[in-house]
């Protein structure tokens, strides 16, 4: 039977290194199957997160040959198998053990985002063409691959002042909800640091749900900030309006 060699990162917060495992191949096998084989036969304590194994929960993110991927959707036959396949944990988050990283920071960012707030007296009717756009953002499975690949987090470690693509998508979903009555522009500018994004589109490239993160979420949100804070006409409108009143455009 054909075999593949996987070089899997083994280690904890202190130290670690790739360890090679030989895995027999089966038709249609994905990287997560190979990791399960290793757990079941070679290294029972290999730490891996996974849930649905169908690309729907976003738990099994890792870097395969250096590319951020869902391991449950990465077919072994799509990889060159003449040299070991390297599997390493997401780089933008601290390692707990092996392929499991501490992603708790993401949950802290999420808490900062004000919930859906329906406009008072709203009629609960919406047209499909109006929900199409926010529905795209709600496809997000929180795999955090976009967070992992965003250089603001990955290379510059600006976790303290930046929300990351996942949460721009989340805010976009709320802001573009046809019945929401709250503006989150100030939050985007002042707490989530949207201005730090310089539109390299890395996040869009790795999104397993094919969400157009940059074009459909980030750029329109950036435009809202520009309109609200840097457009002279809106600046005057803001001055006239009472503080706290919605400046949704």
């Amino acid at each position, binding site marked *: 039977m054909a075999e593949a060699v996987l070089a899997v990162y083994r280690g*904890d917060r202190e130290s670690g290194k790739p360890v090679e495992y030989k895995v027999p191949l*089966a*038709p*249609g*096998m*994905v990287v997560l*199957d190979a990791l399960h084989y290793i*757990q*079941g*036969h070679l290294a*029972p*304590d*290999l*730490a*891996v*997160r*996974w*849930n*649905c*194994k*169908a*690309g*729907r*929960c*976003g*738990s099994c993110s890792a870097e395969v040959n250096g590319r951020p991927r869902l391991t449950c*959707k990465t*077919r072994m036959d799509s990889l060159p198998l003449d040299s070991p396949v390297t599997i390493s944990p997401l780089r933008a988050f601290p390692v*707990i*053990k*092996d392929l*499991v990283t501490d*992603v*708790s920071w993401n*949950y802290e960012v*999420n*808490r900062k985002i*004000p*919930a*859906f707030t*329906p406009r008072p007296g709203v009629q*609960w*009717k*919406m*047209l*499909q063409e109006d*929900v199409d756009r*926010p*529905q795209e953002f*709600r*496809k997000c*499975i*929180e795999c955090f691959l976009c967070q992992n690949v965003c250089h603001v987090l990955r290379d510059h470690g600006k976790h303290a002042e930046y929300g990351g693509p996942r949460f721009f998508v989340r805010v976009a979903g*709320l802001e573009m*909800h046809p019945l*929401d009555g709250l503006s989150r522009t100030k939050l985007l500018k002042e707490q989530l640091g949207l201005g730090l994004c310089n539109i390299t589109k890395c996040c869009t490239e790795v999104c397993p749900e094919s969400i157009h993160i940059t074009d459909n979420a980030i750029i329109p949100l950036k435009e809202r900030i520009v309109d609200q804070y840097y457009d002279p006409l809106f600046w005057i409108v803001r001055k006239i309006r009472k503080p706290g009143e919605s400046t949704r455009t």
Partner: protein
Amino acid sequence: MTGKFETHEHDVLIIGAGGAGLRAAVEALNQGASVGVVCKSLLGKAHTVMAEGGIAAAMGNVDAADNWKTHFRDTMRGGKLLNNWRMAQLHAQEAPNAVRELEQWGALFDRTESGDIMQRAFGGHTFKRLCHVGDRTGLEIIRTLQDRGVHLGIDVYMECTVTRLLLDGGRIAGAFGYWREQGRFVVFKAKSVVIATGGVGKAWKITSNSWEYTGDGMALAYEAGAELMDLEFVQFHPTGMVWPPGVQGILVTEAVRGEGGILRNKLGERFMEKYDPKKLELSTRDVVARSIYTEVREGRGTEHGGAYLDISHKPAEYVKRKLPGMYHQFKELADVDITKQPMEVGPTCHYSMGGIRVDADTAESTIPGLFAAGEAAAGLHGANRLGGNSLSDLLVFGRRAGLAAAAHAKKTPAPVIDPKQVEDAEQEMLAPFSHTGGPSPYEIHRELQDTLQSLVGIFRNEEDLKRALAEIQRFKEHAANVSVEGSRLFNPGWHLARDLKSMLTIAEAVTRCALERKESRGAHSRIDFPEYDAAWAKKNNIIVWDGAGMALRQRPVPEMPEELKQILAEDK
């Protein structure tokens, strides 16, 4: 003594953060209770994300004639009258409001032309009843509830496993568990506990369930003395992927059939014409699963032992819009373009109709202060669950469990934690590290999965079930000596060793119930007793710990009031 451990105290402790657990949490928070939610995975990853097709609620947005009475009737008939009638009634009556609530918390369902929530057809439902978001309805629901809970101030203990319920005399006192990350132990003190841990599908080999579905909640409740009910009813979803082997069991949503998908055998015959000529592909899941299995057994299966499911007669754009997840799943995992080619599908273990016996109105188990909702609880679905009824179940009974748990906490004094129980729980968890040369938990798990798959599957008989019971006994002996390598730091082998205990307990209960029920009904098909038995229509199987071992007895199915009997007798 408990000072030795990290301890958290809440009015209401919820075990499980899927739809039922989160809906319970939201309701208990609404009641002013302090709420803790413990979950084995990260928040938002529970199996609810895998619910694709939709949520059943008689809103009448597409078929105006739909109402709760029809939904009640469909549910009771689908469950072959073994359902708890009161649960079926509450469920049908309250589901529409549960969906409206979600919308008011920000969920975005697909729309009709007039701007209402869109509804689609599904097996066993008389009308177009399933509110949906493409084929990712479960994700929408879990994300909506997750965000609602976060903003109401829920405390979530992520990647934490409960291994034992703690009792104060006969009532609930809390739970003992461990953090998966560091392996440290933790004690939760609570006046009310809600079990919302889902089912036990991971005990079968071909399954749509994730690693978490190990029957923990049911086993914890059983060990604490609660009654379990009707565990023989295990649903095999008719359509899991069968090829390639790496994807075996992954769910193919019933929405494919709801949107007009046709099943054919290798001869090209639309075989459902034989088994249910009226409802065809939209027959109930038990019937469709058995039909596919029968075609395969009689030599008319596909190359890889399944049936063809074809939606390619619909416009490609329509398929991509209504079933985007399925389109990508087949394209990426099986190299199949479902807008052009048929899918190859076969039955996959999917859902436990049985579970913890609860009161219909309060979701309380037989232990005061212990509640259960969702798949972990029994009663609503009887012998077979209709598609779409699980998501509405989560919301309706999650809410009721949260409400009753908060009310119970309000009138109950703080419980006392018994140090002896905590000590026992700690010893149990440490034992596998002291065994050397014992079997690996992975090995026993594989054997258990093979055994249940072949002996406690879609078709059952006495001989197989007796063999399964003997095998499970043997696995239990092996599991007692299981040894674990490595440290307590995020150690999946150690985690599986504990999960295995729950799986073995519930596997035994399923097998005992299946052996006892000498008839065929809903998801339970006995080759040696192929007919309905009127006497068995009046009994629920009950599993309880009797102090020495697993005891099986029966309770009469609650008698339905006259007005519901009339609803049931009506035609449409």
